[in-house]
């Protein structure tokens, strides 16, 4: 297990089901879920670890045919706690609450890693990696999420993490912007002070949003997939902009997932 791992006491014989989004077009979308599952399998803390997806296979509806363990921790491998985690997943898995009992089995529905306090650390680690030797206390961090008008809670997670980052005092400031709702990333200059900036996409995987949509809307000359891309890029007034990997690709995400399982057991003790 990695250093700093939560001190877990998961009862033997439990399964972990990681439910991701996946994609019909972008192979990168499911990649972090496979990586998290592989890494959590290696810890040996669960009798079995299963992946399932909304857009790929196995589907949310089919995965439970594979699960043979009686106690199942279902963790949405998402950053936002919104439409998918509050509506789609409970519906597709037939959940009745945080603990769903069916015959002799029970599903323990954890919150997504994006919601856990340790996620703030993961975001800051991604920012610090992009900044390399630069002192982050002089730099503003801008967290850019997707946002949606379908579920008003979707953006809440990004705001919560931004508040934790602010309270940590490690960055000069921390702003939040979205692709699909206000405050829009188009207006990023109004969201942070006129200082150097590090942008962390608040997405689980890399993909079109992180490689193209955010940089384009911010007016960055170079996108992360361009051959000549490197940090930082200099913008008007000499301001330097650093572009980080997505929050979900932070190497400690598997530990954040474990922390969510542990938090669930604290809130809903095993009987």
């Amino acid at each position, binding site marked *: 297990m990695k250093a700093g791992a939560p001190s877990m006491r998961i009862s033997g014989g439990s399964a972990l089901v990681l439910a991701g989004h996946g994609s019909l077009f972008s192979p990168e979308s499911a990649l972090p879920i496979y990586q998290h599952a592989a890494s959590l399998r290696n810890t040996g803390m669960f009798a079995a670890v299963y992946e399932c997806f909304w857009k790929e296979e196995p*589907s949310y509806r089919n995965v439970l045919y594979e699960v043979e363990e009686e106690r199942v921790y279902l963790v949405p491998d998402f950053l936002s706690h919104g439409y998918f985690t509050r509506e789609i997943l409970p519906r597709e898995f037939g959940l009745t609450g945080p603990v769903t009992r069916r015959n002799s089995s029970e599903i323990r529905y954890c919150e997504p890693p994006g919601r856990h306090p340790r996620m703030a650390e993961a975001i800051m680690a991604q920012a610090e990696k992009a900044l390399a030797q630069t002192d982050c206390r002089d730099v503003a961090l801008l967290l850019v999420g997707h946002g949606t008008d379908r579920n008003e809670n979707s953006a809440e997670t990004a705001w919560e993490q931004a508040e934790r980052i602010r309270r940590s005092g490690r960055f000069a400031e921390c702003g939040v912007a979205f692709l699909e709702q206000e405050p829009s990333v188009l207006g990023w200059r109004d969201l942070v002070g006129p200082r150097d900036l590090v942008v962390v996409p608040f997405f689980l995987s890399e993909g079109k949003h992180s490689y193209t949509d955010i940089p384009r809307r911010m007016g960055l000359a170079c996108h992360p997939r361009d051959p000549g891309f490197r940090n930082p890029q200099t913008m008007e007034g000499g301001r330097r902009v650093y572009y980080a990997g997505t929050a979900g690709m932070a190497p400690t995400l598997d530990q954040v997932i474990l922390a969510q399982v542990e938090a669930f057991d604290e809130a809903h003790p095993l009987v």
Partner: protein
Amino acid sequence: MKLIHWFESRLAQTPSPWTVGEVRIYPGYLLTHREDAPEDSRLRNLSGWEAFLDLVRFDAAGRFRPLRGAPGLQKGWRRGPLSIAELFSDLRVLYPGAVALLVAWEGKRLVPTPFPDTARRQTGLYEVTQRLPREDLPALVEQICVRGCLRHPLWHLPASQPDKQERLTLLCPEACHYFLHQARSRAAVKTAA
């Protein structure tokens, strides 16, 4: 009975080599594309889960294969010798849920979901699938599932209970997202016409 034990005994009861979708399993266990011969020295030995996942998720031209049941698995590789647990987990990567769905089907626990029920659960961009004309469904199933996928769409084409000693049939109890995506395009065209 545990799924892995069911699988092991199914193999023991049926003559080898065993074919599942586009792969063939040889005693020992060796796994190859069904059109490759395991003794062919040109096959590359594939080890590690990441390399195997890549092989399954991309075709020979490097294009993403979101539908695991679609024919087009790359050739020219070999896995093994594998333990039964390794073989079982490779099959989970190749054809997710295949063994579990077959066991549930044979045990009469697998309940296929009719297409209108699946369509009714769709929201947003996929809501339009609810308006797919009934008469368009057979042609779509023929094109996408029958010709473009190795799974049997139980949700549309009823199947007799498989012969228990027979093949490791790939089953599909509910229209997948790939199908819904195609159905959505068809329904959107119809709605606009």
